[in-house]
């Protein structure tokens, strides 16, 4: 399990240059504006915005396509049957296969929204280091408890999945080869899960101690917590543009 969401954080592009706090507000608003889209006439606009955004971010196309695979299959499995089952107006019929208009349109809408939101999320997370993004959340007022948790989870998700893999390797090296579901096999999996929990609990105690030994949780408002509030004109303009597009999309949806 490689979490390299920010493997392209080092690139330089107009989006990379965008301050993480402004970017967070801007792109999240955009995501919601996309979620609002119900009118099919907005779909091309939405896709155009996203293509532009991704192009600006200079992220390689391969980054998008590889990450799109799993959730893409998933959503297709969820809505792929819509054209065949949903709606009255038959577009096309061959044997027992019927393609219906309402379902097809719904499919197009859902898929485009999915694509737009997914890509925007990827641009948000992929164009800067993840840690920076979390710090931006904190300086925007997200609870310190949550952001500290996010940072630690970020660190330990890879670590623990690595530990799990290694423990599973250790079971294999000692001849564990489960081919069927029985009580003992299930119990061994439960032991793996349990070990992981206990191990991480134990580790969390020592981690907390190690953090305390290095001054955690006592100096509120230390240098780390406050980041300088500078007015970054470039980022502010980028934010205004994004907000403008978002409001435009939502406004059209509400008025039309």
């Amino acid at each position, binding site marked *: 399990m490689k979490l390299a969401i920010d493997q392209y954080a080092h690139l330089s592009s107009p989006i990379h240059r965008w301050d993480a706090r402004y970017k967070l507000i801007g792109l999240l608003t955009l995501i919601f504006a996309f979620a609002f889209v119900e009118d099919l006439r907005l779909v091309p606009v939405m896709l155009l915005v996203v293509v532009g955004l991704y192009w600006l971010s200079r992220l390689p196309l391969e980054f998008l396509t590889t990450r799109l695979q799993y959730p893409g299959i998933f959503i297709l499995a969820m809505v792929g049957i819509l054209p065949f089952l949903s709606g009255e107006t038959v577009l096309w019929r061959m044997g027992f296969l019927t393609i219906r208009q309402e379902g097809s349109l719904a499919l197009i809408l859902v898929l485009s929204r999915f694509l737009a939101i997914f890509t925007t999320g990827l641009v948000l997370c992929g164009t800067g280091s993840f840690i920076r993004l979390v710090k931006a959340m904190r300086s925007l007022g997200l609870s310190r408890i949550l952001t500290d948790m996010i940072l630690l989870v970020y660190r330990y998700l890879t670590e623990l999945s690595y530990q799990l893999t290694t423990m599973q390797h250790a079971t294999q090296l*000692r001849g564990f080869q489960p081919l069927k579901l029985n009580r003992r096999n299930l119990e061994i999996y439960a032991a793996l899960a349990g070990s992981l929990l206990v191990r991480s609990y134990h580790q969390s105690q020592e981690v907390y101690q190690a953090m305390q030994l290095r001054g955690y949780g006592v100096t509120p408002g230390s240098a780390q917590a406050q980041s300088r509030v500078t007015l970054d004109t470039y980022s502010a303009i980028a934010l205004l543009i994004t907000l403008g597009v978002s409001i435009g999309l939502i406004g059209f949806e509400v008025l039309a």
Partner: protein
Amino acid sequence: MSEPILNELPKSAIADKTSAIAVGVQVSDLVFSYPHQGIILQNISFTLNLGERVALLGRTGSGKSTLMENLVGLKRPNSGEIQILGTTLGPETLFQVRQQIGFAFQDPNNQLFMPTILEDVIFGPCNYGVPEALAREQADQLLAGFSLSEVAHRSVHELSGGQKRLAALATVLALNPDILILDEPTNGLDPWWRRHLAEILIQLPVQILLIASHDLHWVSRVTQRALVLKQGQIQVDQPTIALLQDRPTLESCGLPPDY
């Protein structure tokens, strides 16, 4: 310092099993790199013959653990081939080959995942069909041999660092492997245990023993041949004692023998 004890291997134990094959482990042109990173092992080739006890030395980060994990099939080389007791390591042969290998990880925590130490020791034998009662009996003996009887019913988290190491070694020895691969087995052990472990290993009827270690003196008592990894290659392949006396070579490999 006492002489390393050569030729004390119970040869009979070896002969009766695989007398036809002389080569135990053969590695040819092995190349390995971690994703998105430079090459760690480049074109490694070597052979371990039956009956050999070999040390794998090298600086921190030189790739010892990585090489060992390749040998037991936990990592897949970019290219190259590994043969274990005549079988080429590959997805289909993995399960079969692993039955003959015992491997102890550098970090003992990874090896101990059952609720108690005792259950951890019988885990392997039970997988290979040893009846539980028998496995338990053998485990009791093994744990007693490692002074762990008292903590046999504790979970890993309640052991000291050295006790964890011993428990991890016990789980591997419980399988009576033909080929034993140990990654820094003395790490965290006190001097008494280092001595005792050396004695145990010297008497163990395994066909091949491969040990990664930073403890040159200790490893020279247990092994007869030493491989040194440097810059992704095996740069030295000598008898261990000869290497230990060859100060310039050692220094050039970053292994000052006084430390």
